[in-house]
């Protein structure tokens, strides 16, 4: 113990150099902590937005996938209809509900303002499928859907842009110069995984959008909710079977639609972010190793510089082991305090990113402790050789060293 203190005291005798030496380890730990923290944050961001869509959700899009996996004309073909959505809703035992949806961009006007946004045509089942709630008012039902009623449900952002603090429910907005009665306001949902803000949107009945605004009869997408997360795969098979039958696709022929399950996407996202985290940590570890080499270097210089001191200590009765422990504890202290400072710096850095950019940057505590411990061990290992060579010095030669 006394020898360990001795090692630390000799570090304090050269504070400038000690700090500079630990700087390498400090930066190494800092970069490991910060990069894994950012990777964790990005992962939680992606997963949260996927979770937002619902883990049971299946998305059917028109278009096909080539053999190489590249999608051809995904989302632009017009092979899906509201009848497909109805068939999925009625005939798939593992589908709890489904809704066709179609979107376009349009100007929406209130008496006070006008706002360019997305108009989404959806069926009454859209809301439960998306597990979405209303903030105020109501949603349209079968009757409005059949009657192509001019009713609209506003997203949060649209409501604020057009009506400010007023309550829009019961008021009218103009979409393509036709008046729509506002019947409800959607609760806030935030960003979609594709980076679109889902609150900047107006929802109208699908039939109204198809016939009165766009003049088409297809749907852009069918959203379907499986009865439970573990029935997603079965539901996927059922949808495939029904749609191939309805679209008269022969056995072995290529489907003219594609089904994506949110759970698959989240699995992929998880895997990608894991690879990302490992990769970032690996790159950051390189700087950690550079820091270790810095300790090796300084310790070698230090042993050489203090050869006479080592000789004196040996003459006075320091055993080789005592010298080894002294220099090893110097290396350990250098790397431990460097790693500790790097860890604290990393936490502050991540907090700073969170405050400045608003990303979620969870502190990777487990990784943090592991990194600090690993860096200390690494630095000590790099100090082993210099300490060992110091302990092997011949006392007589060391004393004569100039």
């Amino acid at each position, binding site marked *: 113990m*006394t020898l360990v203190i001795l090692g630390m005291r000799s570090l304090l005798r050269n504070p400038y150099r000690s700090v500079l030496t630990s700087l390498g380890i400090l930066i190494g730990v800092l970069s490991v902590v910060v990069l894994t923290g950012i990777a964790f944050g990005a992962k939680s961001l992606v997963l949260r937005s996927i979770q937002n869509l619902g883990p049971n959700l299946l998305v059917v899009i028109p278009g096909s996938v080539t053999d190489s996996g590249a999608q051809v004309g995904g989302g632009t073909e017009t092979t899906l209809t509201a009848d497909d959505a109805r068939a999925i809703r009625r005939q798939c035992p593992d589908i709890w509900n489904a809704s066709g949806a179609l979107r376009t961009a349009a100007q929406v006007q209130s008496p006070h303002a006008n706002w360019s946004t997305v108009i989404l045509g959806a069926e009454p089942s859209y809301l439960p499928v998306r597990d979405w709630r209303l903030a105020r008012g109501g949603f349209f039902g079968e009757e409005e859907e059949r009657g192509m009623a001019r009713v609209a449900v506003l997203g949060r952002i649209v409501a604020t842009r057009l009506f400010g603090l007023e309550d829009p429910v019961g008021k009218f907005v103009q979409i393509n110069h036709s008046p729509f009665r506002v019947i409800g306001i959607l609760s806030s949902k935030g960003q979609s995984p594709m980076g679109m803000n889902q609150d900047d949107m107006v929802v109208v009945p699908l039939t109204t959008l198809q016939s009165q605004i766009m003049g088409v009869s297809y749907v852009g997408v069918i959203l379907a909710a499986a009865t439970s997360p573990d029935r997603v795969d079965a539901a996927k098979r059922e949808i495939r079977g029904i749609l191939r039958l309805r679209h008269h696709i022969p056995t072995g022929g290529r489907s003219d639609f594609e089904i994506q399950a949110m759970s698959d996407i989240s699995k992929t996202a998880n895997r990608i972010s894991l690879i990302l985290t490992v990769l970032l940590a690996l790159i950051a570890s390189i700087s950690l190793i550079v820091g270790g080499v810095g300790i090796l270097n300084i310790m070698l210089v230090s042993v050489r510089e203090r050869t006479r001191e080592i000789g004196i*200590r*040996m*003459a006075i*009765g*320091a*055993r080789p082991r*005592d010298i080894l422990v002294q220099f090893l504890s110097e290396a350990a202290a250098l790397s431990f305090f460097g790693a500790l400072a790097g860890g604290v710096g990393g936490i502050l850095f991540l907090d700073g990113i969170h405050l400045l950019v608003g990303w979620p940057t969870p502190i990777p505590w487990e990784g943090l402790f592991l990194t600090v411990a690993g860096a200390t061990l690494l630095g000590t290992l790099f100090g082993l050789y210099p300490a060992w060579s110091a302990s092997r010095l*011949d006392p*007589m030669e060391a004393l004569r060293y100039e």
Partner: protein
Amino acid sequence: MVVRDGPGLSVRLEAVTKIYTVSGEELPALRGISLSIPAGESVAIVGSSGSGKSTLLHLMGLLDRPTSGAVFYDNRRVDTLSPSERAVLRNRSVGFVFQNFQLIPRTSAIENVELPLLYRRLPARERRERARDLLASVGMGDRERHTSSQLSGGQQQRVAIARAIAASPGLLLADEPTGNLDSRSAATILDLLLSLQSRFSTTLVLVTHDMEVARHAQTTFRVRDGLPEDPQ
């Protein structure tokens, strides 16, 4: 004041030789010296520079090992011990005083004196108290916190002597202890060494080229070209 653990140590060298090999060439420093120093005696080893007198001292102090021959402490052979065992023996039985003082740089006087006690695993409080007493006994009680660069040569040598006797060794080895000092400091240091020797009946070996210094020792041993000049 420090209490001696026991009487001085007797040292015996038997036909020791030391040959240094420098870039393939063999340079004999000692060609066969036998020497016996009884416990508690003071001996001056005298010779010109290059005569091998310092090498002799280093062999006695277990800092180095003879190429052939043997070293005995109180009739126990010690040159064949492991580096670690020799370190323990140096710590417990030998005190060194060097010509260039060999204090650890940037380290206070009291910490220097504490060092041998630290390697002896003495508790911190005891170390500190003992080192304080020792510094006071060599007249350096008011310079505890000074580092070597803040001390004169004579003062540094006094700290070095305090350090040499800190572990109450039976054998005190001084290699030209007055070589770097002015005549007044030299006289003080010599007096200090001799008074310690007589007070604790420590064995004192003094290496010098100065006959005036050697005169103070009880016996004188002359070395020339690695051989005894006038065998005892």
